[in-house]
């Protein structure tokens, strides 16, 4: 519906001062539009209401929420590592992985509750269960996980109930994977353009990043000869994280932009350096004490920075109406031109 008398919008422009009057113009980055022969085309021109954001940026606090994601990822993957190490008789690795997962689980609950506007109503999360709400499902993952992982770590510390410990560890491991990946859905299932566009990739980014962190931390804490599985998991996680993040940063045209620019861009570049260096160091020096410690720290830092970077990128894309308007305009134009619409029914 862009018909005017002679031009779209019939030639109307906002009438106030120069910054608002000039319609914001941008040249699209070439390439990287999925399935499109339209890659190099148009200058995306867009209008907005006095440059104000269209959607409301998340009110989630930083560092609470990025920390929550990081801790959840590390806890999830190390709980799996703990259970498997327990079953294959690696006592030191089992113990350390349980400490990591238990400690991170409890801390992540604290950060999640602290982020609520009404923390005393945390238990309202468990009033209903809603598959349409990743936060509801996430609460039902986090609650049993943190109980099981926390209890397992506690009895590990106190040295009680060895049998029960194994059971608790297995329960935690069952919820560990979902805990590490559901947070991707948590972010993606919003109207935030840069998160929503990457909705298939974010669970992999966060899951893999969790493996890198969990593997790195348990490897740094455990004796070299038992930590083989941690090293492998850390390296694989780092590789998958880098690959998935690369897709997020390049595949989505204009909404990939916030992942390169400003604070988010800097954080994510730092994240990539840390993760890559940590993985490389694990391979060459992971079998030496100092190497393992430094590599583990680098991997954990990379994972942490990834969460902060993705968080900031989403915030930036929510604050700028460009990222809401331009993709939606493109979608409308594609539908009008009879291209296969992005909305498939």
């Amino acid at each position, binding site marked *: 519906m862009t018909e005017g008398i002679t031009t779209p919008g019939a030639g109307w422009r906002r009438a106030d001062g120069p910054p608002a009057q000039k319609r914001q113009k941008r040249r699209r980055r070439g390439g990287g539009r999925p399935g499109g022969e339209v890659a190099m085309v148009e200058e995306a021109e867009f209008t907005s209401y006095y440059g104000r954001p*269209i*959607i409301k940026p998340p009110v989630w606090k930083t560092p609470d929420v990025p920390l929550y994601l990081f801790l959840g990822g590390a806890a999830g993957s190390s709980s799996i590592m703990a259970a498997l*190490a327990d079953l294959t008789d690696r006592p030191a690795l089992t113990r350390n992985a349980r400490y990591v997962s238990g400690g991170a689980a409890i801390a992540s609950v604290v950060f999640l509750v602290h982020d609520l506007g009404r923390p005393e109503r945390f238990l309202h999360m468990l009033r209903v269960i809603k598959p349409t709400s*990743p936060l509801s499902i996430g609460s039902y993952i986090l609650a049993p996980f943190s109980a099981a992982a926390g209890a397992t770590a506690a009895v590990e510390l106190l040295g009680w109930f060895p049998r029960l410990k194994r059971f608790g560890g297995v329960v935690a491991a069952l919820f560990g994977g979902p805990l590490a990946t559901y947070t991707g859905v948590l972010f993606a299932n*919003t*109207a935030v353009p840069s998160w*929503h566009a990457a909705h298939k990739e974010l669970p992999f980014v*966060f899951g893999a990043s969790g493996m890198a962190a969990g593997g790195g931390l348990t490897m740094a804490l455990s004796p070299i000869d038992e930590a*083989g599985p941690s090293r492998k998991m850390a390296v694989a996680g780092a590789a998958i994280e880098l690959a998935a993040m690369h897709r997020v940063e390049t595949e989505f045209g204009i909404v990939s932009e916030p992942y390169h620019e400003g604070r988010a861009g800097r954080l994510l570049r730092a994240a990539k350096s840390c993760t890559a260096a940590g993985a490389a160091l694990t391979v060459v020096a992971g079998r030496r004490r100092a190497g393992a410690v430094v590599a583990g720290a680098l991997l954990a830092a990379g994972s942490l920075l990834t969460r902060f970077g993705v968080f900031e990128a989403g915030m930036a894309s929510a604050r700028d109406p460009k990222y809401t308007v331009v993709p939606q305009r493109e979608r409308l134009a594609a539908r009008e031109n009879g291209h296969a619409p992005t*909305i498939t029914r």
Partner: protein
Amino acid sequence: MTSISSASPAFTGRDPDNRLFGPLPDVQGEAGYDGDHPARVGFFTDTSVCIGCKACEVACKEWNTLPMDDAHGVRDVIGLSGMSYDNTGQLGANSWRHVAFIEQTRTVDLPMPTFGRPGDDRQDSGRSVPDGPNDDSLATAQQSSVLNAEALSEFDPQTGQSGTDKQIRWLMSSDVCKHCTHAGCLDVCPTGALFRTEFGTVVVQDDICNGCGYCVPSCPYGVIEQRKGDGRVFKCTMCYDRLTDGLQPACATACPTQSIQFGNLDELQARADARLATLKEQGVETARLYGRDEDDGVGGNGAFFLLLDEPEVYGLPPDPIVTTRDLPAMWKSAGAAAVMILGVALSAVLGSRRLR
């Protein structure tokens, strides 16, 4: 009575097609209300007759005792936005109606030097729309391919003429929560604080909301917001308290031009279609309905609009979708990623020989 679900109908088993988007003929029924629930109500906001008086904003603030804030949501300060006559700035926790105010100009090609005394054309343009142009001038206007200032000023209800080759118009539009058929805020609320009422509207229960803030970025229109210093979220209730007592919403009652029309949604839709046809007939080619289409990304709005320019000019998204439309793909992806972690960990353990 059956239980009322605050989840999308797709997961309650009441919708065989498992729809997370698209039209829903009986929104309340899908949410679990019995067959004898009241009709779905809504707003038709006809911005072509809005005069920007902000009576709706004031009425809403008064009725709902909303706190004062400035254009950026800062509590208890008086602030001028400095951008237009709009000092409300946005919908938010403390402003459930927001009158957008856009001043626009355009350059027009005057086809001929004006004959007669200067100022004659001004009197001309003062004619009100209903007395309207006669058929002759309508035909002339439609024939002329140039932007004819004189003709257009007669047809566009919100155009004034500055007398030169520049035209000015003011667009005013009272924005409000859309009470979406598929409401992102409602879908993602983990506590069930947001629910669908028997009138088909979407309301927050402030004794349940724990301020998780998930609904805030999930609304494709940026409506719902957390109130600073309170922690919970707030938005238009379509005056649920008034509706249950058989009253009209406060904002619609206060509107002096009937720009805000409240009623049963299907009647409003018919009225809006007729109004659009009238405007098109009068030559207002940029008029369009927004949120009326039930095939749009949110299944249509309970509160929809007649606009005179592109939606984004008013701060509305041009093609909103409910974020949960893609949720099945996301859950699938998360499941696959969780399996991947398990697989990697398993092969890491099995692939490592103990060196001891």
